[in-house]
């Protein structure tokens, strides 16, 4: 008889604990911590920064203007697509406040054309690495979107080579 009673007692305790635990938690926890930053945010910022850099290089180096322009256009489009997905996953508190940075990113400048190509190529290379890590771990739709970012950056890197 005792084992049976013991089991019932245990079940009762378990039921009590299940009810009591959230109540205790509700009394003791602090206000919820802000959600962790979206892993896509860093990718979007890097894309916007490359776009700003490339825009500045278009005027500075006319010989490569067409290539720098494509980097600027495509990195900007990637930034927009990534921010759209960030906002979809976590809608901003109001329509006016979106995840768009409050100040536009400052583009990097370089002493000469060769340094500009090398600098932008390196930046695109780290974008490929960064986005690859996200694409391999993100849930379905995001993996596709970020995979396209990886491919798009690999193309721009090849374009400058």
């Amino acid at each position, binding site marked *: 008889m005792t084992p049976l009673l013991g089991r019932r007692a245990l079940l009762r305790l378990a039921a009590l604990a299940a009810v009591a635990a959230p109540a205790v938690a509700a009394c003791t926890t602090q206000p919820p911590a802000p959600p962790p930053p979206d892993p896509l945010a860093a990718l979007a910022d890097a894309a916007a920064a490359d776009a700003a850099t490339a825009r500045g290089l278009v005027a500075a180096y006319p010989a490569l203007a067409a290539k720098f322009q494509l980097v600027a256009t495509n990195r900007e489009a*990637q930034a927009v697509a990534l921010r759209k997905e960030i906002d979809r996953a976590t809608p901003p508190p109001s329509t006016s406040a979106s995840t768009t940075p409050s100040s536009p990113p400052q583009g990097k400048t370089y002493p000469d054309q060769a340094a500009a190509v090398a600098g932008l190529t390196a930046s695109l290379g780290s974008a490929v690495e960064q986005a690859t890590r996200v694409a391999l771990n993100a849930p379905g739709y995001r993996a596709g979107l970020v*995979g*396209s970012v990886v*491919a798009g950056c690999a193309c721009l890197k*090849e*374009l400058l080579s």
Partner: protein
Amino acid sequence: MTSPVPTETVDALQRALAAEHAAIWAYGLAGAYLPAASDAALTKGAEAHTVRRDAVTATLQKAGATPKPAEPGYSVPQPLTNASSAFVLLVAAETDVVSAWRSVLEYTADAGIRKTALAALTDGAVRAMTWRQSGGQTPATPPLPGQPA
């Protein structure tokens, strides 16, 4: 048999296989119309698609699925008459490959399949760009290769 591969992953892999079959066919057909300067890229691209086709065939067999065979022929985006239309054909073939592999990326959580899909998506996008450049098509690359319009 290891852990079963979900149906949606198998379906996406079958679409990728179909795109690889079509690309191998396109590379075989385009060669006759391209300048000698394109020979190296043509050979390399055809080899890359053959390797992917064989790999995805093996993956499907391991998953217990029957890999879809190649079609006897495929439609071309425009009549194949010269180098320009051959470049258009190659860009179209690579674009289909890129879309199909991006879809695989979305329909699997398997790390190995994702790595393969990402590599195939990236390689195809770069080859599509070089064929656009050879054929004088602009822009050389879209911002998000494989992204549905």
